[in-house]
C-alpha cells in the first residue's frame, strides 16, 4: 500500500488505499472514505498537516485540548501505532476498527488489555488499576475513602487474578472480561455503523467503481 504521508493525506485517499484499508478492517470502501472526511476535519483543527496530534485528538473528543489525563493519553498512545507522536489516517482507521460493532471480540479484548496495561509490562498490575481508579474519581469529582478503594481493588483482583500472583495476564483478562462483558462496553462505538450518514461529504469525492457482478467490491 502506498505510504500515506502528510501531503497525500490532505487529498482524498486514492482508491487503492481505501481498498486496502477496507480489506484489512470491518469498514467498507465508502466507510473508509467517510472516515477520511472525519479525519481531515479533526487533524487540521490546530495544524493543517494532515496528521492527528495529541492536542487535536483531545480537542476532537473533549472540545478542549488541555484535557490531559492518563486515559486520554493512553488512548492516543495506542492509536499512535508508529510511535511518532502523531496519528496518520492509516493508523486512525486501523485503531478505530477495533471499536467497530462488527470487530471481533478477540481484538476488543486485546485492545482493552493494552489500554489498562499502563506501563506496557504485559500485565495489568494492582498499582496501575489503583492509579486509574483514583484518576476516574478525580475526573468525576467523586470522593471515596481509601478503605473503600482498597476493598474494590481486593474484590477485583480476587475475581480477575486467578493465579494470585498480584497481576493479571492476557489469559486471566480474557476469562475476567467474558464473565464481566460490561467492561468491554467502551470498546464498541455504535456510531461507526452510521459513519456514511454522519459524514456524507465523501459521496462527492468517492473514487469507487461500480461493479455489477458477484465478486463486487464492498462499496
Amino acid at each position, binding site marked *: 500500500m502506498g505510504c500515506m504521508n502528510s501531503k497525500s493525506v490532505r487529498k482524498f485517499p486514492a482508491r487503492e488505499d481505501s481498498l486496502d484499508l477496507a480489506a484489512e478492517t470491518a469498514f*467498507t470502501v*465508502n466507510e473508509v472514505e467517510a472516515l477520511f472526511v*472525519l479525519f481531515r476535519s479533526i487533524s487540521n483543527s490546530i495544524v493543517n498537516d494532515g496528521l492527528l496530534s495529541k492536542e487535536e485528538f483531545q480537542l*476532537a*473528543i*473533549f*472540545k*478542549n485540548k488541555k*484535557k490531559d489525563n492518563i*486515559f*486520554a493519553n493512553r*488512548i492516543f498512545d495506542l492509536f499512535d501505532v508508529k510511535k511518532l507522536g502523531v496519528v496518520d489516517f492509516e493508523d486512525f482507521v486501523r485503531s*478505530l476498527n477495533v*471499536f467497530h460493532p462488527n470487530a471481533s471480540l478477540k481484538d476488543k479484548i486485546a485492545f482493552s488489555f493494552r*489500554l489498562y496495561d499502563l506501563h506496557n509490562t504485559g500485565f495489568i498490575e494492582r498499582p496501575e*488499576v489503583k492509579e*486509574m*481508579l483514583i*484518576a*476516574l474519581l478525580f*475526573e*468525576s*469529582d*467523586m*470522593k*471515596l475513602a481509601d478503605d*473503600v478503594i482498597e*476493598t*474494590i*481493588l481486593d*474484590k*477485583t483482583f480476587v*475475581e*480477575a487474578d486467578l493465579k494470585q500472583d498480584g497481576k493479571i495476564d492476557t489469559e486471566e483478562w480474557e476469562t*475476567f472480561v467474558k*464473565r*464481566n462483558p*460490561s*467492561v468491554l462496553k*467502551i470498546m464498541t*462505538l*455504535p*456510531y461507526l*455503523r*452510521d459513519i*456514511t*450518514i*454522519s459524514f*456524507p461529504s465523501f*459521496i462527492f469525492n*468517492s*473514487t*469507487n467503481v*461500480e461493479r*455489477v*457482478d458477484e465478486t*463486487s*467490491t*464492498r*462499496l
Partner: protein
Amino acid sequence: MVILNLGRNEGQGMRLGKYELGKTLGEGNFGKVKLARDTHSGKLFAVKILDKSKIIDLNNTDQIKREIFTLKLLKHPNVVRLYEVLASKTKIYMVLEYVNGGELFDKIASKGKLKEAVGRKIFQQLIDCVSFCHNKGVFHRDLKLENVLVDAKGNIKITDFNLSALPQHFRADGLLHTTCGSPNYVAPEILANKGYDGATSDIWSCGVILYVILTGYLPFDDRNLAVLYQKILKGEVQIPRWLSPGSQNIIKRMLDVNLKTRITMAMIKEDEWFKEGYSPANPEDEEESVYIDEDFSIHDVSLEADQGSPRSPTLINAFQLISMSSSLDLSGLFEQEDVSERKIRFTSIHSPKDLVERLEDIVTEMGFRVQKKNGMLKVVQEIKTQKCLGNLSVAAEVFEISPSLYVVELSKSCGDASVYRQLCKKLSNDLGVHKKE
C-alpha cells in the same frame, strides 16, 4: 412458497456491495429508486440512485447533504429510515427502508376517501411524526399525499425530506424565505412571498392531507395556477356537511389563512376529535437507545457474572468503574458536545429503592415527566413551544460500590445542556454524598 421477483429483467443480479438490485420502484428528477435485497440478511430495502453529475450541474449538493442529515436526525416509526449512503465515481446511493404499501395518493386515487376512523388513525400518525420533526428543528415543507407511504399494516411513513428546512435556514427574523412545496398543498403565506414559519406551514399542508383523506378530493384545485393560488390565498374551502362536526372543525382550524389563529401542533393534540383512539408512537421504541443506556437500572453485576442472587448484588469491580471515564468514551469524535458534559455522576448513600422514589419526587417537582416502562425509569422534559429543538431526555443508572454506597450516573441522550446541568446539580445536591462528608 412465494418467490420474490426482484425484477430480473432490469439489470439481472446487479450488485451494489452487499445489496442485489432489482426492479425500479419509481423515478425522480435526479434518478431512480430501485428495490434491493441485502444478500446477507435477505431484508428488502429501497435504494435511491442519484446521478452525481446532475446534482453537481444543478448545484444541488447541499440539498442532498441536507436530506441525509435530516434523515439521520429523524429516527421515528413514521419516518422512512435511512440506513446507509454509498457512492461511486458517478452515482450516489441512499439505502432506505422499503415500504411495501405504496403511496397514500394511489390508495385514495384508486379506492376513494377513507372511513373516518381509518383516516383519523393515519392523520394521528402524520401529526405525531410531523410534530416529532418540528421538535428536532426540522420542517418538511413539501408534505403531500405522494410523500406519505403506507406499509402493509396500514401505518404511514413520511418520505422525501429533500426540501426540508433546518434551524440554520431561518433568517434573522426567525422565518423561512424560500418558496417550495406542491401547489395544491402549499400554505398561503408561502405564496404571499412573506417570511413564513415552517411549523405553521406544515400544519396547513397536514390540513390539506386530512381533507383529501376524508373527502377523496383536494380542497383547493384549479387547472389555472393563478386561480388556484387565489383560492389558497383567500382560504376559500368548501367543507362537506356530511363530515363529522369534529373533523370539520379541525380542518377549518388547520386551513386558516390567519397565521395568528391557525391551530398549533399542541392544540391539535388536545383536540377531542383527534384524541379519539390516539396512542402516540414512541421514537425510542424504534431506536432502542443505540448510543446511551436510556434506562434507569440498578446495576446488578451479579447477574452478569452469573454468581449470587439478585437480592445480594456483587459489588462493582474496579474495571467497571474505570470504564465510566468520559476520557475513554470516543463518541466525542462524532458529536458536537464534550462527552464529559453528557455524563455526570455522584456517590450516594441512599438505597436503590429510596433513590428511585426520591429521584421521581425531585424531577416531578422540577416540572419534568417520569416515564416508567418495563420497570425502567427515564426523566423527560417535553417542551410545548414550536421552535423547541427537541426534548430533554435523561437516563439514570445506579451502581453498587459497597453495601451502603452507590454511584449514580446520569446520561443525557438529547436536549438542552444548561437545563441538564441544572437537573444534575439539583439531584447531586439532594441525593449525593459531598466531599466534606
